[in-house]
């Protein structure tokens, strides 16, 4: 299944999609130089298109270069070959429409919840009063109003993720990049956070690229799932997920269409996982 046939056959999702897509990566290759001067290819001939308002998930074997795709979109990494476009324009530096939720805890531990959430608007030059007002609103939306004065270390992992979501959404990003954001959470909390994310996203109209190694998470959340090959990563196949929205995470996993979809994609992904694993065992790194 090729990406291009899929894209051409499909009508635009929404009126906004009539403009250029939110994110385009065209035949992108990304090489790293290791400290001892060796070149390592993380991404090879990678092509991906995310329309405005679309939720795309990227799954692939461990260490195949999934996160690299996100860094290319932020502008924190430059492509070695190929082209990356955000909102129709080439990427030069960090785009102000981009928001990023990290896998690790990236909150500022010396700032209270309120100051963490207000950070983005203040960095962008909003007055403190306005920024705090906005921050209170977003903290309320993620249900943490009673924890405004708390410091991150006083919160549970799930609550810290909520703060991270509020911190990102307050900037009203048109493009939301998420790098295995919920992988460190326990299963129940993860389900809650997935619902939370879909709620916030559905009101925002943002385009999402969500990187995960959890296939079920990908299918449950996404409009479109990209399966990557074992490193150097390239797109193996693209699947469109037509499950109706709004989706409820606690229930969707028992939906027969969902189960079938997962099974099909897993057959595809499994080969790559095995290749990746075999390579790790063979090379020892």
């Amino acid at each position, binding site marked *: 299944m090729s990406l291009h046939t899929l894209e051409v056959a499909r009508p635009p999702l929404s009126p906004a999609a009539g403009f250029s897509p939110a994110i385009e990566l065209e035949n992108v290759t990304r090489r790293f130089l290791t400290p001892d001067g060796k070149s390592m290819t993380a991404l090879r001939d990678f092509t991906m298109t995310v329309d405005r308002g679309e939720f795309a998930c990227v799954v692939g074997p461990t260490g195949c270069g999934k996160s690299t795709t996100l860094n290319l979109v932020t502008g924190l990494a430059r492509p070695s070959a190929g082209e990356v476009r955000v909102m129709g324009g080439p990427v030069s530096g*960090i785009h102000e429409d981009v928001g990023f939720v990290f896998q690790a805890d990236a*909150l*500022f*531990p010396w700032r209270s919840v309120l100051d963490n959430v207000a*950070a983005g608007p203040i*960095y962008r030059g909003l007055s403190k009063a306005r920024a705090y007002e906005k921050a209170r609103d977003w903290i309320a939306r993620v249900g943490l109003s009673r924890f405004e004065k708390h410091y991150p270390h006083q919160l549970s992992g799930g609550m810290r993720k909520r703060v991270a979501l509020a911190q990102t959404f307050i*900037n009203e990003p048109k493009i939301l990049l998420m790098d295995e954001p919920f992988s460190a959470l326990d299963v129940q909390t993860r389900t809650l956070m997935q619902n939370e994310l879909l709620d916030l996203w559905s009101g925002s109209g943002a385009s999402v690229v969500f990187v995960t190694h959890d296939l079920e998470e990908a299918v449950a959340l996404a409009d479109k799932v990209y399966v990557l090959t074992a490193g150097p990563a390239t797109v193996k196949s693209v699947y469109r997920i037509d499950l109706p929205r709004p989706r409820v995470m606690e229930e969707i996993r028992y939906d027969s269409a969902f189960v079938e979809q997962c099974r099909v994609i897993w057959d595809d992904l499994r080969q790559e996982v095995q290749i990746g694993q075999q390579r790790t065992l063979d090379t020892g790194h």
Partner: protein
Amino acid sequence: MSMPAHAVSAPSTAAPRAIPTEAEIEAKARARIKARRTLVISLRIAILVAVLGIWEIGAETGFIDPFFFASPSGIADQIWIWMTEGTSQGPLWTQILVTLEETVLGFIIGAVGGVVCGILLGRNKLLADVFSIYIKIANSIPRVVLGSIFIIALGLGMPSKVALAVVMVFFVVFANAFQGVREADRAMIANAQILGASPFQITTTVIIPSAMSWILASLHVSFGFALVGAVVGEFLGAKQGVGLLIATAQGAFNANGVFAAMIILAVLALVMEFLITLVENRLVKWRPVPFNEQN
């Protein structure tokens, strides 16, 4: 919540006495903590009394020669005389104030310089690569020797002592600030960048706060170093100060005087250490409290 608890509620035949209530357990734990604290404090006092007692008795009986090793009562007398009648070089308070001023000035200048240079070099790879070799060389010089140069260049007054205190403090603070900047979390910096922070905002709101624990740790050590710098400077040549007091006492074979000045310096250092801890606690109140600090 109450439903499952009801379903598995324990048979009511269990002896009520056997299970202590929450309040009883807490009261017991509190009593244990209190008893332990009392024990620690009494042991501390006992050790102090024992050491001073043995020293004093040794000096009285001639087992320890008080001419060379002083005696607690002699030291106390000396401090009392200095406090009431003044020292050979003027009132005791003046000497303490002079030394304190040199120390604090040197400490502030050295710490600020160290922090600024540490952040500058920590943030700029080229500067760090170029200057690291010179800093290593400068750091390997026994810095106390620089005191002689400072006395020649800056005279017997305060500036030479301050300069020596500065070089004592600078390298410690610099090394820690540099390391702190380098250890700043990558994800946190990237987060700030994407949220819209400029490089300057990243330095002030991410780099400096995250290096703060490192910097504060170095301040504890370096205040002691500043004091050493000031006192050694006064040793080498001065008109005022506790260091001169020690030098004078040494010249007169007055062991009590040397010990007395030493105790005054120790009290100074302890007071300042306490103040720095206060400042630190204000600055890093976001840090988690270590679990069960008592043990």
